[in-house]
């Protein structure tokens, strides 16, 4: 490909949009439709990788589309943090598509065309967020992402889906309009610009009280980061099909949230200012509380997806803490955690979906002994859990290490303790699942158990457990699980590129 970098950068946003056209045209031919999605995601991954290469060779790119209002433009550029986000998102789009094909077909979901179209639109919005050159552009795509994922969350069209969608849209839209927009307008009014700049755009002599208030507005306004008390949308969005949960929790939405927080902390406030704002400490404790409380709530969930959702809230708190610590280890840890958590959590969600499809189980208490039926899935679940907990040999080790270093450097002893307790809690709510799957026998099935679970009833009545047949999810889903699991391990063995990108965030533009 001989396109200039500028063209390639715009293609990352345009390709998913074009894909939508293709998907709609191929409405009634599923194979062609999914073929289009897969080729588009391969193409996108290819382009993003080439952009990565050009970033490594140190080229600066700026693309200006147009001014919506004077000095408020839609424009894009490439910097390491956005690159990191785009790489993860485009790679996982490809994987999720594979997974979705297996899942959606064996689940015989309806409206698959709408599903794939909205999915592609969401990816386009994610690319826009990742490469945005100013806060205004970011906000525009942030809202597009919210609206494009709404039909995905409510995909089932049932009363429950409607309720979930209401909470989802209600919280995300309200926080972004009431707080985020106000914070943006305030920033624009004080500084006269919204461009992302190394070291921030505020004058060092800005009124600390106002800047502190703006920071609070930003953190609350970026509802996608799910800091308590604005976290309810994440568990509510569980009603969505599993590939959507994967998209929401690992690839697009929550990552867009913490990505935005990192961007705001590093490029709008600047670490120097951030460290001396009066509200930073309060927000750190709030995020810490979010980490702990969410972990505790997660322990009490019996629905696997709900437990994973609360686990996500807790892990997002880690990233927010890292950003607010305002040190280089904090930022490095946070940005690496975006990647490692993405791989870990998507593996877990894929597994949850695979269990649902193959064994029709969604409750953790029903999964005892499941390891004999779905060994591969459960091994993947185990490795994904290790990565979330942050122990070798998985990628989560590195990011948690840097986050911990950040708390020690800044002498935030309380937060350090919070992070360590939370890791223990992670162990407590994640590891028992694969453990019981392999080493426990299923609980005796009650006879009044839901009669729809024919398979599980059959299994339970089968006394001789060694005779259980292996019945895994369809192969495209299994392949996807394999790749993300491998990703978790790979990030441990070879974290160098990730680390380089993360360190480059603070060095870029200087």
């Amino acid at each position, binding site marked *: 490909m001989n396109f200039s970098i500028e063209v390639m950068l715009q293609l990352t946003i345009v390709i998913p949009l074009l894909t939508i056209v293709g998907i709609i045209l191929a409405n009634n031919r599923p194979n062609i439709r999914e073929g289009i999605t897969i080729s588009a995601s391969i193409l996108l991954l290819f382009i993003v990788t080439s952009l990565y290469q050009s970033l490594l060779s140190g080229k600066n790119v700026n693309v200006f589309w*147009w001014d*919506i209002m004077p000095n408020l433009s839609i424009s894009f550029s490439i910097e390491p943090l956005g690159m990191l986000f785009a790489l993860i998102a485009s790679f996982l789009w490809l994987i999720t598509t594979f997974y979705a094909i297996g899942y959606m077909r064996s689940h015989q979901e309806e409206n698959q065309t709408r599903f794939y179209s909205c999915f592609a639109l969401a990816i386009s919005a994610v690319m826009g967020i990742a490469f945005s050159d100013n806060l205004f552009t970011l906000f*525009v795509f942030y809202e597009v992402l919210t*609206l494009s994922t709404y039909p995905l969350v409510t995909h089932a069209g049932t009363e429950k889906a*409607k309720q979930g969608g209401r909470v989802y849209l209600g919280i995300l839209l309200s926080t972004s309009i009431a707080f985020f927009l*106000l914070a943006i*307008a305030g920033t624009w009014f004080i500084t006269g610009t919204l461009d992302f700049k190394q070291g921030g755009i505020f004058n060092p002599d800005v009124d600390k009280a106002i800047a502190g208030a703006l920071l609070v507005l930003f953190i609350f306004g970026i509802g996608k980061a799910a800091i308590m008390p604005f976290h309810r949308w994440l568990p509510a969005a569980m009603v969505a099909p599993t590939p959507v949960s994967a998209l929401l929790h690992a690839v697009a939405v929550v990552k867009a949230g913490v990505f935005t927080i990192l961007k705001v902390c590093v490029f709008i406030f600047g670490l120097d200012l951030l460290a001396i704002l009066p509200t930073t400490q309060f927000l750190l404790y709030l995020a810490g509380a979010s980490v702990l409380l969410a972990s505790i709530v997660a322990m009490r969930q019996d629905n696997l997806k709900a437990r994973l959702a609360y686990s996500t809230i807790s892990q997002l708190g880690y990233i927010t803490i890292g950003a607010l610590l305002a040190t280089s280890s904090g930022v490095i840890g946070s940005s690496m955690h975006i990647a490692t958590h993405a791989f870990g959590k998507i593996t877990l969600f894929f597994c949850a979906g695979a269990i649902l499809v193959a064994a029709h189980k969604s409750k953790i208490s029903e999964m005892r002994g499941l390891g004999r039926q779905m060994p591969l899935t459960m091994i993947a679940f185990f490795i994904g859990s290790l990565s979330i907990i942050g122990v070798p040999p998985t990628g989560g080790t590195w990011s948690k290490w840097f986050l911990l270093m950040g708390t020690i450097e800044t002498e935030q002893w309380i937060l350090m303790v919070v992070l360590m307790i939370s890791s223990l809690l992670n162990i407590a709510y994640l590891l028992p699942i694969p453990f019981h799957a392999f080493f426990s026998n299923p609980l005796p099935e009650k006879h009044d158990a839901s009669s729809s679970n024919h398979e599980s009833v059959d299994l339970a009545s089968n006394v001789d457990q060694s005779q259980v047949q292996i019945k895994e999810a369809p192969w495209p889903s299994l392949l996807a699980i394999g790749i993300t699991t491998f990703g978790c391990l790979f990030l441990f063995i070879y974290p160098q590129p990730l680390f380089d990108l993360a360190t480059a965030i603070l060095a870029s533009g200087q």
Partner: protein
Amino acid sequence: MISHLPILQVIVPLMAAPICLLLKRSQLVWLFSLFASAIAFIISVLLLQQVMTSGVISYELGGWEAPWGIEYRIDKLNAFLLLIISAISTVVLIAAQTSIEKEIPKEKHTLFYILYLLSLTGMLGIVSTGDAFNVFVFLEISSLSAYALIALGQDRRALWASYQYLIMGTIGATFILIGIGLMYQMTGTLNMQDLSQRLPEVAQTRTVFTAFAFVIVGVCLKLALFPLHLWLPNAYAYAPSIVTAFFAATATKVAIYLLIRFTFTVFGLSFSFTTLPLQGLFLLLGLTGIFVASSAAIYQNNVKHVFAYSSIAQVGYIIVGLSTSTITGLTATLLHLFNHALMKSAIFLALGAVVYRLGNVQLSSFNGLGRQMPLTMAAIVIGGLSLIGVPLTVGFVSKWYLLTALLEKGWWPVAILILLGSLLAVIYVWRIVEAAYFKKPLADSVPVKEAPLFFLIPIWLLITANIYFGIDTRLSLQVASAAAQSLFGVSP
């Protein structure tokens, strides 16, 4: 020819109205009205161009010199308004014939178009004239035809709504007339420019205060500022759909124009906002209006009522922008005049299409409509998003300007309230979305088809405009800020 444009703007629809009587056949009358309205639109474009390049146009009616004769005075502000009114009128008329076939008995079709054109004449006249008494004359032309138009609605409650509007509107017009009379008594002139020069000499008299109060209250009745809004919801809900689409986008806008004209030009900024407590009053009423009307919109079951209350809330935003009495605030107000006209005409036209297919706009009739009328419903959703103020729609642009204006003033709490107010819009828009996309059609309902082409074309023209002007704000922003600057006497 070109020098006569200001009067042609008003004369063309005025003369077209009686000609309709001769044409008789409904189809012909429709085409002719559309033609007349399109000519008015072209004239307004030419006028705007001329004003933007070479400044204020003063036209002396019948050749009588200004303070004595009637002067038509086109500056950036009213050229902008003329464009909004004539453009919306033309686009809405495209759907008129299709819509009234279902809603108005055949023998009244000609009457409908005559009234429509007269109403258009009245609005264009109010905006283009530079004479205070002439304002009253055109106000009566537009109002009287409006009462009759609303009464044409097929629902019997339309008569009552029209009667309500008649009473309130007449009180409003009378108040304005009394105010103008008092001003005439003090200054001996009716020309607005002349008034603005002579009023300061007598500004500190009780008569002028009274005149001011009468004019402002009268105008606020017309523009449905909370708590003078009671006539509006029923008038919008029971009028024929086309009439609602036209009025929702233009009628209150004209009244807001009058408010701006009287407070900024005739009485002067310092008199209106400094000597008299208009600022605090407007801020308070505007904010209360936003919250009361938006909350009321949430509880309506007739979707036309929902958006009628939403219109009252939007007037609140416009008045809050005005209350800042800064250039940015006025720019936000003018921008919102334009943007709100685009949103509401699109939404009400789409509702007209729903009426065409279903016969009513009860919320329960919307169940399952997302599948049956996908294009119409998509238009309502986009219009609703624009109303909420989602980026890339016009609603976002005006909200952004309003926010900036409020922050400029240092009114942070007001800015927060404004944003909270727009969250209420999320709720009332989403009730409709959920009904259309999640609920199953009622058991006894007949499946309907997508709206006819003559509805879809104007609806999507307006929706495209909603998005286009949300992305490319050069035209709207340039004109709005130039008009605001000239009202403040700053040369752009």
